[in-house]
């Protein structure tokens, strides 16, 4: 069977720095796939290329058979994404944010209302549906983003560190729901995380990226065998070393810093 996600010899250069270098991997339909690596290893850059936000310098990417570069719209219809950084409109209410998303993805109006209620109930935000997002805490925003990513029932769901900053209860609830979606609807899940126990518990297969290159991939068992270690965390540290990484600050990040400074100065 044809893989639902296919990355072929992809590289991405930012001026001098090569963030991703000649990466290839496949994800099968219905798999839960964890994409792990230290800060600045190239995880987010890879996700951005897969989701049409960045163009690769070299190589090709396919989602459900659609070339991400040449058939952007077809590729965009296939996936949902929960970004690492917030991407909600703070001035709109929680409900309005989801409604806007539903319209962008052409979800039928009747289905839309039912599904928004269902998802917002799941993430325990239905009571706050008419509150503006700017009044939400970080965790609430995260939950809302996750609900939004699921709204149009994508074939592939990208989750870039979805559980960052969430408490243990919410994390558990969330993974249970995602596993349910995966089992019932065959939704392919592609996620990154720094909680290795999460990856070990949930992922069918794992790829580890470091310095822009895939250093290992396989099931948890395979990775443990390959490194002769007892759990995923040990295997991971064996493969990526123990030094702390500096993240490559790309243009977007330095922009954000600048804006934050401007805002801070105004106050």
């Amino acid at each position: 069977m044809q893989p639902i996600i296919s990355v072929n010899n992809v590289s991405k250069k930012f001026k001098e720095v090569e963030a991703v270098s000649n990466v290839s991997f496949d994800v099968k339909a219905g798999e839960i796939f964890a994409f792990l690596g230290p800060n600045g290893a190239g995880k987010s850059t890879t996700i951005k290329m897969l989701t049409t936000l960045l163009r690769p310098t070299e190589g090709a990417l396919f989602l459900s058979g659609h070339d991400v570069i040449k058939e952007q719209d077809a590729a965009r219809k296939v996936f949902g994404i929960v970004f690492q950084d917030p991407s909600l409109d703070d001035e709109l209410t929680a409900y309005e944010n989801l409604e806007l998303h539903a319209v962008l993805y052409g979800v039928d109006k009747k289905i839309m209302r039912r599904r928004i209620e269902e998802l917002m109930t799941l993430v325990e935000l239905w009571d706050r549906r008419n509150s503006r997002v700017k009044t939400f805490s970080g965790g609430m925003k995260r939950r809302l983003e996750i609900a939004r990513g699921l709204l149009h029932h994508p074939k592939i769901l990208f989750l870039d560190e979805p559980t960052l900053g969430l408490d243990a209860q919410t994390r558990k609830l969330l993974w249970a729901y995602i596993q349910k979606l995966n089992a019932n609807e065959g939704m392919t899940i592609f996620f990154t995380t720094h909680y290795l126990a999460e990856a070990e518990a949930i992922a069918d297969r794992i790829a580890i990226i470091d310095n822009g290159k895939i250093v290992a991939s396989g099931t948890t068992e395979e990775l443990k065998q390959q490194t002769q270690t007892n759990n995923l965390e040990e295997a991971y540290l064996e493969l990526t070393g123990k030094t702390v990484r500096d993240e490559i600050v790309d243009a977007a990040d330095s922009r954000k810093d600048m804006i934050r400074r401007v805002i801070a100065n105004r106050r």
Partner: protein
Amino acid sequence: MDIIYILWLRQMKRYRRSGLRMVLSVVQPLVYFLTLGFGFNSLFQQAGRGSYIQFVVPGVVAQTILFTSIFWGVNIMWDKQFGFLKETLVAPVSRLKVMLGGSLGGATIAVLQGIVLFIIALLFGFHPYSWSMLLLTLAVMAILSMTMVSFSSGIGAVVNDMQGFMAITNFLVVPLFFLSSALFPLDNIPPVMKAIAYANPLTYAVDAMRGSLINQNHFSLPVDFAVMSGTLILLFYFSIHRFKRIQA
């Protein structure tokens, strides 16, 4: 259509909820109108040119629209910084619709502000020469705001930091405004200044506004509308081209 509408609606909601911004953005042109209008009125009349208040109202209405729309790109910058732009960029909708929805929202807001200023001017004694011609004024307002809003969005798409954006727009807006016919008639000014004013697209919008509001034209309405439409098409084309190239 749904997509353009929902993105337009988003801007309307944000505007309605912005509170003070709604009020503050008409204050500056209002100060121009009151000080210049009443300050120069008698001088203008002594020079045999009629009422300066009548003359300057089309100029300050255009100013209101210009200032609101040329800073519209701030919203694009904002959406870039705070991530919402990514939400629209990964969605299976064309960039054209994304830009059109937002820009129509910005243009609507700019026109509304222009109308507010116009109503205030009425309260201070301004009288249009023909009420039916106001429809034409509205068309001028719509074209001008759409032109500047899309241009500003294009700048917002290219520039990546807020200071840069503010520097560019401030650099543009002051000469655009002062070297148009917004504040003074064009017939007795030095040739260099005249040449610049003739090359300034805003001059034609002000002229069309003056033509439709007080029946004074330096050029003629067909010329004004031709230049305005041409500018709109050109700047919209520039902006959509830039917008398509945004990477996040």
